């Protein structure tokens, strides 16, 4: 039985089909934490870029409304542009 506070690693040996369950080593925990942080940073950057793009689109939409277009006009233009 493993310590429930220690993450567990499952390893499948493809040659023998033997399955081994063991606690992660300190090095493995550190390496995975670093990789996880890097992945989280990458996703945060992607989310921030997507949010900025959405905000820019919303601002542009408002500018068009300010010029007198209706939302229906804008949607029609966008649909035509995507076609």
């Amino acid at each position, binding site marked *: 039985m493993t310590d429930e506070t220690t993450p567990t690693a499952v390893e*499948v*040996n493809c040659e023998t089909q033997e399955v081994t369950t063991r606690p992660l080593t300190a090095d*493995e925990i550190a390496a995975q934490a*670093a*990789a*996880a942080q890097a992945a*989280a940073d990458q996703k945060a950057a*992607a989310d921030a870029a997507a949010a900025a793009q*959405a905000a820019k689109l919303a601002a542009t939409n408002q500018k068009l409304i300010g010029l007198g277009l209706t939302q229906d006009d804008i949607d029609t233009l966008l649909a035509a542009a995507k076609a």
Partner: protein
Amino acid sequence: MAATYNLISSQVLGSSAASVTFSSIPQTYTDLVLRISARSDFSGVVENMMFSFNSDYSGSYSDTALRGNGAAASSVRDTSALSIYWSAAGNISTSNTFGSAEIYIPSYTASQYKPLSGIGAGETNATTAYMGATAGLYRGSTSAISSILISVGNGSNWLTNSSFYLYGIKNS
């Protein structure tokens, strides 16, 4: 007719685990395919499912990812990643839904850097779901891939019944 798509090994978790590794991968196939259905204990919608080869965490991965959640789309490029990741379901996704991913690794025994491609989805059946497509490259070594580690990025564990299948593709 030759069997060209063979199940090498699989693992369906009977209890939670932080990572699943396929080791001693036979070098007798042309390409590899990973098919995964997974859910983690992360208290969010989307878990980062991370892949590492040959126990290498040295920043030798690069990837370009496209992602969308139904409201916005984004693209990211990372040239020195510690792993390559796809979306999976986190633990506030709709109960009992699992994220899914398929990763194709061509020419995994060739003496060259290892390209790969994949698609993945973090399902919720509710408000927000992520899907992503990734093109990746492992540049740590030109050695054949002999092990693949799939680990959680945000949470602590893959939950019970998460399933991992490794297939070998032969070209004849």
